[in-house]
């Protein structure tokens, strides 16, 4: 397969919240990139920094208390972290679009669906006639599979079901033909049968329109089903990155392995679930060493003394764990002990 160009690259991103309890490095030195037309997944448990990462890309980190304190976000030869708000607003409207977990909070309850869609078209196509704008809105609604598009144009958000609202949000995000679509937990609030419809829609749109998608989720099933490449985050850091097949067939980081072992599988009964002991640390509470060390069954001295870097384990697979330091590899048995 031909290597596709990197369209968005995040380098050494650090986003910090300055709170009364001190500095919270919610995202700490994160690197990853999205290639043209690919679906990249970011997966991790609650609070690991997924949403803050996506808000950082969009220039929407609530400030104060939040601030990008380090790093670059490269998009088409510009560093988004350095752009003035006016420029950033243009990028948000045209090149990078985002959909959120709860569509209701991003739709205005007072206006009809048609109103909101047409307003969004108007922003990008200032010289279009009313008719053109209306037609584009209806066309987008049909594209995302909304039934009776023309009728829905006259309805208000509360008259739609959750799945329909999420489709409207996707339609709105795609109006301007973005190059990158960031979807932050787009199906978490939906039922599984509706989730299946929305994921299929996102996959189809990615294929048809060649929009690159950054899909953020805590659901490993959603990742396996939708993404080509995966970034696993833990406590504000990327701990593993690789093609989806590699991550699921050959998970390397002890956290990724623990996570995969602990998910009940709908297809068969596991006698007992593997359970990672302990809890996710508060961001900022572990200053040196591997952030997973307090919960890791493989932890050894070095893990609390030094912070592990990302080791390149195969051409496309990276892992932040000392077990994959070529110098250590011989010394350790990496078999997970199932309780």
């Amino acid at each position, binding site marked *: 397969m031909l290597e596709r160009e990197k369209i968005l690259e995040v380098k050494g991103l650090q986003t910090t919240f300055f709170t009364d309890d001190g500095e919270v490095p919610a995202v700490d030195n994160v690197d990853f990139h999205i290639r043209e037309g690919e679906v990249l997944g970011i997966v991790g448990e*609650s609070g690991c920094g997924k949403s803050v990462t996506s808000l950082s890309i969009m220039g929407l980190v609530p400030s104060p208390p939040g601030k990008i304190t380090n790093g670059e976000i490269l998009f088409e030869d510009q560093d988004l972290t350095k752009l003035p708000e006016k420029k950033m607003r243009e990028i948000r409207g045209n090149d990078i679009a985002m959909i959120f977990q709860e569509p209701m909070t991003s739709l205005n309850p007072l206006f009809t669906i048609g109103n909101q869609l047409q307003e969004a078209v108007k922003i990008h196509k200032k010289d279009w006639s009313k008719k053109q704008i209306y037609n584009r809105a209806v066309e987008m609604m049909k594209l995302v599979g909304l039934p009776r598009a023309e009728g829905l144009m006259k309805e208000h958000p509360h008259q739609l079901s959750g799945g329909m609202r999420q489709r409207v949000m996707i339609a709105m995000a795609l109006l301007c033909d973005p190059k990158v679509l960031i979807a932050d937990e787009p199906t978490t609030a939906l039922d599984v049968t509706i989730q299946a419809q929305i994921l299929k829609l996102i996959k189809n749109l990615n294929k048809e329109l060649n929009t690159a998608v950054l899909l953020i989720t805590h659901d490993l099933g959603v990742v*396996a089903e939708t993404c080509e490449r995966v970034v696993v985050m833990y406590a504000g850091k990327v701990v593993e990155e690789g093609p989806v097949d590699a991550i699921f067939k050959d998970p390397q980081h002890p956290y990724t392995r623990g996570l995969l072992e602990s998910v009940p599988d709908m297809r068969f009964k596991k006698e007992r679930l593997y359970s990672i002991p302990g809890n*996710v640390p508060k961001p900022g509470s572990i200053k040196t060493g591997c952030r997973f060390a307090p919960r890791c069954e493989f932890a050894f001295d070095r893990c609390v003394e030094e912070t592990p870097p990302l080791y390149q384990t195969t051409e496309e697979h990276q892992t932040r764990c000392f077990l994959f330091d070529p110098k250590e590899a011989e010394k350790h048995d990496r078999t997970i002990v199932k309780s």
Partner: protein
Amino acid sequence: MTEQLLKVEGLKKYFPIKSGIFGRVSNHVKAVDDISFSVKEGETLGIVGESGCGKSTTGRMLMRLLEPTEGKVTFDGQELTSLSNNEMRKARRDIQMVFQDPYASLNPRHTIEKILMEPLNVHNIGDPKERKQKVHEFLEIVGLSSYHAKRYPHQFSGGQRQRIGIARALMTNPKLIIADEPVSALDVSIQAQVLNLMQDLQKELKLTYIFIAHDLGVVRHISDRVGVMYLGNMAEMADTEDLYEKPLHPYTQALLTAVPVPDPAFEREEVEIQGDVPSPANPPSGCRFHTRCPFKMDICETTIPIFAEVEKGHSVACHLYEESRPQ
């Protein structure tokens, strides 16, 4: 043969919808509409279904935290639905509930000790010293420590709070625990800890569980039998293996194929269903699933399919299986 601990017959809950300035009842939300099932001693019955299908309403009616509109609930030989409020309060010693959001159900101003002590006070179990001892014992049982007793709910993580919720449910030595989405708010790594804990406790204390959840993986893992609800009805119920390996109801089939599987190599057979769940205030006529069912026949629009056994221990409400039923 194991004994039936709980028997539910023709259970219904209609919530009135009031409208107009006089607040006249104009219609009803048929949240639970005529469901029957039973639970054997020591087993775990899972109940799954999508949002709004009536899972929580069912759970709450079993304990009469909600009064059923109709139907009979028999627990351990006693008909709960005919008990006075006072008698019902006593019966609750044997049936306890665990909720999805333990935080909302734990009083933020009380210490964990006080929270765990309360059911003992209510049911007048033991003297103050014994009560205190029991609190500490159960904290250890659910994997916390006695020094946690003096702390407040906000000082605990989500997983720990759920352990406290479980400990509270166990204080009165109940026979049956109704757990309504007990792990839905938890991250997978913490979810596994709580599921393992519930399984261990079941063995140790010979508990019977009704486990309500929308996650089909979790339900498969924990349940001996599973019931699938759709729009206030029980669509299908069977032993876990049978239900997951040989789902009969078209809705169950669709539900099972819609779940994303954590394996990129997995190829699914799709039974895709269109559209959304209709409103329980205006449920479709006949079979409630007919508006989305890929196998719909004419009879489905007019006649409600009966929920009945079609194979041993496997019941389903669908006209497709009318013939296979013993007459």
